[in-house]
């Protein structure tokens, strides 16, 4: 770990020697952005593969296992195919917005990645309003979906996009409030601070009952945020073709697809950071080697991603009115009561 970070430190010093400070800072930011982009586009592809294999196992199938060892190169081949495909569009589509939409979606999901504390000191952007930033960024993605649906001049796409708007605006509340419940306990919005608080015990243990309720609400609302089944009304294959990305092809479609999986990773990573102590190991067993924190972080995130896949392949799709009933009549009141409950718990200091 010390060696890894001394490399970044050396690059940092070398850049600042080479050019004026302002320029060096910009170059550094671009370098970090490129590194993140490379890591997470590959990670996104492997999440797609994981989803396909896990889905197959849930349905007693085998899944893709032909391309490369156990199908490891399958999604690479798919991406290659998508890159080489023609980009088609509808006649009389709003060309500018139509082309802009996929970038909106993918950029907003990649931006959110910058604030996660993958391990001690391995965090691209540690701002003091980290959690607020995450909630804000994750709701920007829906603009891309709305633009895509609106501009592609297709009724199904428009219906899908509008549903996405309804869904995201509703479930945004539950995500925000359940995270706010945990902020009451942690006492900070800064992600590195939240991790620091959890050194004594993960927040889900510290906050016991209200934290667990908040976690459940968060996972349900988070799944809805990413527009995944059982909340995939946005794409609803049986009703809307492919929903908002019906008219997209090739790489633009791939951006939407990749963004969905990166969003899933983000939702799981937020849960890992806020509820399960980010890179902290259970009982501090690898406290002395912080580089292993990356593995702990990714391990916990993948378990939560698996949980999301588990309910995706278990439950059927909700109807739009059931979706809104679930949010406004159940999750939101539960959440509001829970936040008061948590406040009492914190006030009386009956945390563990």
């Amino acid at each position, binding site marked *: 770990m010390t060696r890894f970070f001394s490399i970044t430190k050396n690059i940092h010093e070398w850049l600042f020697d080479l050019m004026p400070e302002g320029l060096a800072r910009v170059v550094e930011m671009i370098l970090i952005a490129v590194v993140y982009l490379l890591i997470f586009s590959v990670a996104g592809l492997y999440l797609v593969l994981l989803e396909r294999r896990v889905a*197959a196992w849930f349905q007693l199938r085998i899944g893709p296992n032909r391309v490369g060892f156990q199908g490891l190169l399958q999604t690479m081949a798919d991406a290659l195919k998508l890159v080489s495909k023609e980009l088609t569009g509808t006649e009389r589509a709003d060309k500018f917005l139509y082309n802009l939409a996929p970038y909106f979606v993918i950029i907003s999901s990649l931006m959110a990645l910058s604030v996660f504390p993958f391990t001690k000191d391995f965090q691209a952007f540690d701002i003091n309003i980290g959690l607020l930033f995450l909630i804000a960024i994750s709701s920007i993605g829906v603009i891309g979906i709305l633009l895509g649906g609106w501009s592609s001049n297709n009724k199904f796409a428009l219906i899908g996009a509008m549903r996405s708007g309804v869904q995201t605006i509703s479930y945004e509340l539950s995500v925000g409030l359940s995270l706010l419940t945990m902020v009451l306990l942690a006492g900070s919005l800064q992600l590195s601070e939240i991790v620091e608080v959890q050194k004594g015990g993960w927040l889900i243990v510290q906050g016991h009952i209200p934290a667990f309720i908040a976690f459940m609400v968060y996972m349900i609302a988070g799944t809805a945020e990413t527009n995944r089944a059982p909340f995939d009304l946005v794409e609803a294959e049986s009703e809307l073709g492919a929903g908002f990305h019906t008219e997209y092809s090739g790489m633009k479609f791939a951006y939407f697809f990749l963004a969905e999986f990166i969003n899933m990773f983000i939702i799981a990573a937020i849960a890992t950071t806020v509820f399960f102590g980010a890179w902290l190991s259970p009982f501090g067993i690898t406290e002395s080697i912080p580089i292993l924190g990356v593995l702990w972080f990714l391990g916990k995130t993948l378990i939560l991603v698996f949980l999301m896949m588990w309910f995706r392949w278990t439950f059927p799709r909700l109807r739009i009115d059931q979706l809104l009933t679930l949010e406004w009549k159940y999750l939101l009141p539960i959440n509001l009561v829970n936040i008061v409950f948590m406040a009492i718990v914190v006030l009386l200091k009956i945390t563990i």
Partner: protein
Amino acid sequence: MSYFSDIYGGIKTLLTGMSVTGKYFLTSRKGAITQQYPDNRESLKMFERFRGEVVMPHDENNEHQCTGCQKCEIACPNGSIEIIWDRGIDEATGKKKKKIDKHIYHLGMCTMCGLCIEACPTDAIVWAQNFENSVYDRTKLTKVLNQPGSKVKAGIED
């Protein structure tokens, strides 16, 4: 109070559903229903009820059970079965008796409805479990089910 029982019921059914799929997930490695077909061509056995094509089983004495009653021919909705029959003298009784000359089956026309097999009173024709039926020449799909020189098994008509 149905509000709270709804929440309880929701969580309970959630967990029930997830335990079912969880069990599938854990057993899928052994119980996968996917056949990796061209790889396991030798070992792949179709299940008993699979309808591959109609065949007429013959025993070791080259005897089949078809009496030539033509019920299958009548039952077939699109004329896939043609029976060419004749009358011959039965050695045992010395009477004239109907016997098949050729039981012709057009696989190319068959819709695998199974009505002929249901109609057969002596179980002379049954389903086979083979499935690789493609050929390059259409005439190869017209098959004669009874083997040359075969005769009906004694006592099948009683």
